């Protein structure tokens, strides 16, 4: 039975290993490699030079060929097996066909040796090509993309929390005519995906003058039915007597929302905030439709555009993919507990 259900205590029950115990560990370890492996490989690759990226078979760690200064110029270093069988470390001056002229860097004045390129190996050391990260920010528009992404994510999350919590407050703490109708409407649209309203939404955004405007990306996303639903369910658990007490205490309805209900709904707000950050940071299709001017691209759109070019500069793309992954990984590492609780509780994604 223990293959099916957690037994009290550790794996097994002292009767040795069952085949299912082995299968479990194979699955867990294989799963770890398959789940984490690609991301780790991405990070390692992102530190490789274009030359190292083109190698097959690839190396695990980023290696770069060492260079040395010879007569004022940087020359690549090789381990060379000379005709007499001696092995020396030499710098390449120039190369003609399959023959390279090599010189000892400690004795640059000597006559260069002619070496077949098959008889030498580059001298390599682990070297992180951090220029993969710095150059896209300096030479390309990635700094702009990053700024746009941060702006969209932060603004959308703040507005989402504010408007959703106000609506959820009204829908959970007041009796009024039409309340059930509003709730029904919200639940009915929980499942309306963007792709179903893509065309008319485009025209609405165009009509409001928000094309090629980051607010055109932000506004359509903030009135999430999911957020209203999640917050309302939580606020229903706040006792009404607290609100009555506040009313006796001269609090206005706005103060009741702001000083009583909002602080008490903090756990649900935290879950929604985390999801909103992840959603908005990752958004793709809608920004792709709204933004056509390059300086307004978010990181996701910018990445896709550069990755879609004919001659993909993988060393930059990989580094920027890592950058796009960082906030989500931070959320994952520090706030995973909230997320799993949120999903298990509400089926939210």
């Amino acid at each position: 039975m223990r293959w099916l259900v957690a037994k009290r205590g550790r794996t097994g029950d002292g009767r040795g290993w069952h085949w299912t115990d082995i299968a479990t560990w194979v699955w867990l370890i294989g799963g770890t490699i398959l789940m984490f492996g690609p991301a780790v490989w991405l990070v390692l690759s992102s530190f490789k030079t274009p030359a190292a990226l083109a190698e097959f078979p690839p190396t695990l760690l980023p290696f770069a060929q060492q260079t040395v200064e010879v007569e004022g110029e940087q020359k690549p270093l090789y381990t060379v097996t000379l005709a007499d069988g001696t092995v020396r470390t030499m710098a390449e001056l120039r190369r003609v066909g399959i023959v390279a002229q090599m010189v000892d860097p400690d004795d640059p004045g000597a006559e260069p040796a002619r070496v077949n390129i098959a008889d030498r190996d580059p001298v390599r050391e682990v070297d992180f090509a951090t220029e993969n990260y710095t150059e896209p920010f300096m030479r390309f528009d990635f700094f702009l993309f990053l700024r746009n992404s941060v702006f969209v994510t932060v603004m959308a999350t703040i507005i989402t929390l504010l408007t959703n919590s106000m609506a959820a407050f009204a829908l959970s703490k007041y009796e009024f005519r039409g309340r059930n109708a509003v709730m029904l409407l919200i639940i009915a649209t929980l499942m309306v995906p963007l792709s179903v309203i893509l065309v008319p939404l485009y025209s609405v955004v165009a009509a409001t003058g928000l094309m090629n405007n980051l607010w055109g990306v932000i506004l359509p996303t903030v009135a999430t039915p999911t957020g209203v639903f999640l917050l309302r369910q939580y606020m229903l658990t706040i006792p009404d007597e607290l609100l009555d007490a506040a009313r006796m205490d001269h609090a206005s309805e706005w103060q009741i929302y702001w000083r009583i209900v909002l602080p008490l709904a903090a756990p649900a707000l935290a879950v929604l905030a985390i999801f909103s950050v992840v959603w908005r940071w990752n958004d793709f299709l809608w920004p792709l439709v709204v933004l056509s001017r390059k300086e307004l691209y978010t990181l996701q759109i910018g990445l896709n555009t550069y990755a879609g070019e004919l001659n993909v500069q993988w060393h930059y793309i990989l580094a920027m993919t890592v950058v796009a992954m960082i906030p989500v990984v931070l959320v994952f590492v520090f706030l995973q507990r909230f997320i799993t609780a949120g999903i298990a509780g509400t089926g939210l994604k």
Partner: protein
Amino acid sequence: MSNGGATHYLTAPLRWLARAADVPLRAWQRMTGQGGMIALFLLPNMAIFSIFVLIPLGMNALYSTTGGVEFFLADRPYVGGEHYARLMDCENYLEPRSCRDDMFWIAVWNTARFVIFQVGVMTLVAMITALILNRAIPAKAFWRAVFFFPVLLSPVVVGLIWRWILQRQGLANLAMFEMGLEPVNWLTDRFWAFFAAVGVSVWAHMGFYTLILLAGLQAIPRDLYEAAEMDGTPPFRVFYRITLPLLMPNLLVVLVLALIRAVQIFDEAYVLTGGGPGTSTMFMTQYIYESGFANLLRNPGLAAAASILMALVLVVLTLCQLWLSRRAGGDR
């Protein structure tokens, strides 16, 4: 809120605004009573919601019955059911080339195939993983996190990671090479590109469904298993007679959510293969996007008609879910 120094300072301007807002809002409350305040609380959300969800939802029908390349409705001539007729004009629905809009039917059948493979494989994998995570293993939270991790990644990141791994000289072919197999053109071969899209999608989303199934498994009372053990019930019978029936509500949620999302597949597949090679990974959402915006001969009306047909499928799936979950709820 007095907890957390950073949150305290970050929210300071907001708190100041809220306090300043109290004076006019108190006056508003005195003038209009509770009803006025309810309206005020609902207004921002419902206004945004109406403008950007409800109105577009209603306008979709108008777009699908008008023609031309303009987006402004007044500039669009009424064409009636022409777009629907064009989409449905087919000698043999199973053979896209016999259809007037062959691309639409290619997208339909690609999506259908994708849904079947992706949902099937993903549910199976998520189920096995959930069963394993429900066993007595050390560091449970860690393993759960491992399988959940890709769920948070953006589709662009997912697409690019796997494009890098599945490229001609990528890690995947290195693995094939090490195992003595022929390298495969994962993303440029019609057959493999489709299954690459399926596999990547399963990789990216299975963690989410694993969590839902795991929550269901953990909610099954342990005494039931102990009672079954006392009765000497064989393990597979316990699985079919206890675990599976009690997990049914969660399994249904997983199946229907996965179906609804698989029908909408776009982002990661688009980044991974761009719909290619040829049309082998062209799915419904990409068809809507491209016919509405990206193509040289854009046709918003056609895109709207296609999106309404897709919405119909989604509505049917959602109703199925409601019906099934009600029935499953009634059984107990």
